[in-house]
């Protein structure tokens, strides 16, 4: 399946799987529990906030202040699509690396990073917009759970972007030949995981009422 040759210094593995690939999958397994706890808490506290603003309904405070519903679904939907496409782009970049096609690798890896940056930018805009609309971190349970969950997801995206960005720089310097394509594959695996987490967060947080 993978096109990289075994490094001369490393003995063959018992299962034939590359150690680093197995390690990333193991780490991903652990991270699944991490996000499960965050998403579980969001669900347990859903609908329990004492004061608004609320995600899907408008709310008027006892003092007469009026708050719109917080979420803007069209923007987030577009950002979701961009993130999903970035997973596709990184697969193309990986194919380029494995085939030794430098243009393909650099082109699609750049597209991945740009898409990821767009997603993070969208989230930053979204967060600051929510704060303007009256949803702070400490305002209510919705604020605390929402910002913590999506914030940690965003942090994971950011780490992924730093990783992919570093690989992009290496690719530009010609340091990702087919034998080293695994390095990109590891980052791509992590990137897909971050994407899958968002695929769960988006409907649970944004779409479910």
């Amino acid at each position, binding site marked *: 399946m993978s096109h990289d040759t075994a490094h001369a*210094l490393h*003995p*063959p*593995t*018992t*299962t034939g*799987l590359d*150690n680093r690939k*197995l*390690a990333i999958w*193991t*780490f991903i*397994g*652990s*991270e699944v*529990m*991490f996000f499960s*706890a*965050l998403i579980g*808490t969001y669900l*347990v*506290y859903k609908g*329990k*906030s*004492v004061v608004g603003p609320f995600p899907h309904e408008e709310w008027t405070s006892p003092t007469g202040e009026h708050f719109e519903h917080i979420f803007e679904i069209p923007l987030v939907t577009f950002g979701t699509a961009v993130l999903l496409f970035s997973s596709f782009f990184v697969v193309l970049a990986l194919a380029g690396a494995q085939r030794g096609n430098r243009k393909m690798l650099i082109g699609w890896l750049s597209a991945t990073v740009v898409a990821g940056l767009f997603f993070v930018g969208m989230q930053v805009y979204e967060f600051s917009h929510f704060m303007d609309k009256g949803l702070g*971190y*400490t305002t*209510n*349970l919705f*604020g*605390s*759970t929402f910002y*913590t969950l999506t914030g*940690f997801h965003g942090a994971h995206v950011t780490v992924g972007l730093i990783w992919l960005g*570093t690989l992009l720089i290496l690719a530009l310097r010609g340091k990702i030949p087919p034998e080293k394509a695994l390095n990109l594959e590891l980052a791509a695996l992590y990137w897909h995981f971050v994407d899958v987490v968002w695929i769960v967060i988006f409907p649970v947080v944004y779409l479910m009422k």
Partner: protein
Amino acid sequence: MATSAVEHAAPDAPAAHSKTGVWSWITTVDHKRIGIMYGVSAFVFFMLGGLEALLLRIQLGSADNTFLSPDVYNQLFTMHGTTMIFLGVMPLSAMFFNFMIPLQIGARDVVFPRLNSFSFWMFLVGAIVLNVSFVFNAAPNAGWFGYANLTETQYSSGLNTDFWVIGLMALGVASLAAAVNFFVTIINMRAPGMRLLRMPMFVWMSFITQMLLLLAFPIITVALIFLLVDRYFGANFFQPDANGDPMLWQHLFWIFGHPEVYILILPPFGIVSEILPVFSRKPLFGYAAMVFSGAFIAVLGFGVWSHHMFATGMGPIADASFGLLTMLIAIPTGVKIFNWIGTIWGGSLQMKTPMYFALGFIAMFIIGGLSGIMHAAVPADLQQTDTYFVVAHFHYVLFGGSIFALLAGAYYWMPKMFGFMLSERIGKIQFWLMFIGFNITFFPMHFLGLNGMPRRVYTYPEGLGFEFWNLIQTAGSMLLGFSFLVFIWNIWRSKRAGVAAPADPWDGATLEWSIPSPPQEFNFAEIPTVEARDPLWDQKRSQGRPLPEPPRVSGEGIHLPNPSVKPLITALGIGVFFTGFLLGSPWPIPASLTINLPVVLIGFALTAYGILSWAFEPA
């Protein structure tokens, strides 16, 4: 799979990197040295936790005592529990994971040696964070389980809980990194022929433990994050006024906390399953059943967490379900106990010190298991919970269980690790002192608990009938503490006496006994090929006991990973990052930001430098 995929050792050549001196230890990526560092640190912290316990026992030795103030008492019992669990038992197990797993599977090291080093330094960062709190008279004081909302700012306004949260987060990073490392190592680095169902039991139990670590630690990390943001940034996770639920803390904590106790006991189970066969000169009874019961215990262990919460009013359905599942865990546990008995039954028992501790383990663990099963009955637990009956239970399983087994492992494996034999005479004396001291200290707690003495109280009044047993227990604890001094003395005396340990002092069954004591850096001159369970007994059978003493060879031509300081730098960076949370804000800023942002950013930068330079240095 290729047989010996690595190189043969040639007669002579000096090492490229210095093997002596502090720097060689700081930059080591050798699993054996890392194991020793874990062991020494763990033992020091274990002694510290023991000292904390002795102080508690002095305070409780008589009614209405004023030896310790309530506040100091709270810090001591919190730190005693936290220290013993996270800085005692876990790193003692880690010592054996590190030293023994690669040897037992026939590997030269773990898969990620630098990550291994990182785990150790991160552990030390966490241990230091937790204990430096004493200097500020702000040691964690809300129990090792830190229940919200007692731990929220309005009820715990000092730095105590912050030290606890930060310390545990750092330890969690260490444990997760190590778990990834050992999980991949056990799957991918086994010698040719070492199929999964031929692995030593210690490796199996450790393997299952790594999976528990991977799945349980993220949960407590989330709980700690919630508590951290509540305390530092005013979030609402456990604030009842905002409809936050303190029960959420309990659920998250115990979903971690119960698997954690299996993390504490499974490796010791594995150690005992190694020692009993060797010292009975019989193979383990029911190997496959032992493997699968261990796995079953781990899986079930994720389903019983609310048995720590029977008194919180969850309702009859939850209570009954968790009670039932808790009782079910007794079944695989019972399988193990009967299989251990089956192992020694009809065996030729070699009554050496490791065997004493292993047999003592079985007896003490059964007692602890019996009180555990009593807790599983919900109505009974409503009387037992939060009393000394529970304290008795967990000390029997954690001390009489885990610690006895870890000591058995120490006596068993120290000749291999350090190259000298420990005194059998002092060892047996030490065992009896510990066994008697332990039972005097903890058995009466069953009585006190059922007679109504609550846990976590700094004193008790006269006239309730608690004085007699408390005094006995305090005396017992002094004997118990003394027995550890005898252990230290045994090591010191025996090192001076210098009786060299052969490669195979016990006629062992597993691969670590086929190489010199202590092992050379590359472990095996030639990676062995395994053809059966108990590979060394298998070899001895086919070649005729005993095997010749393996020679020390030069190891030239064997590639070993380079030492590196980058893991330490990364761990320090994370330590600095976390320290920023413990220092106050350096300038007057919005009240919600209570961290030292410059220090946090410096820590972040140092961590990033550590990770990037690590990624780009040659392995």
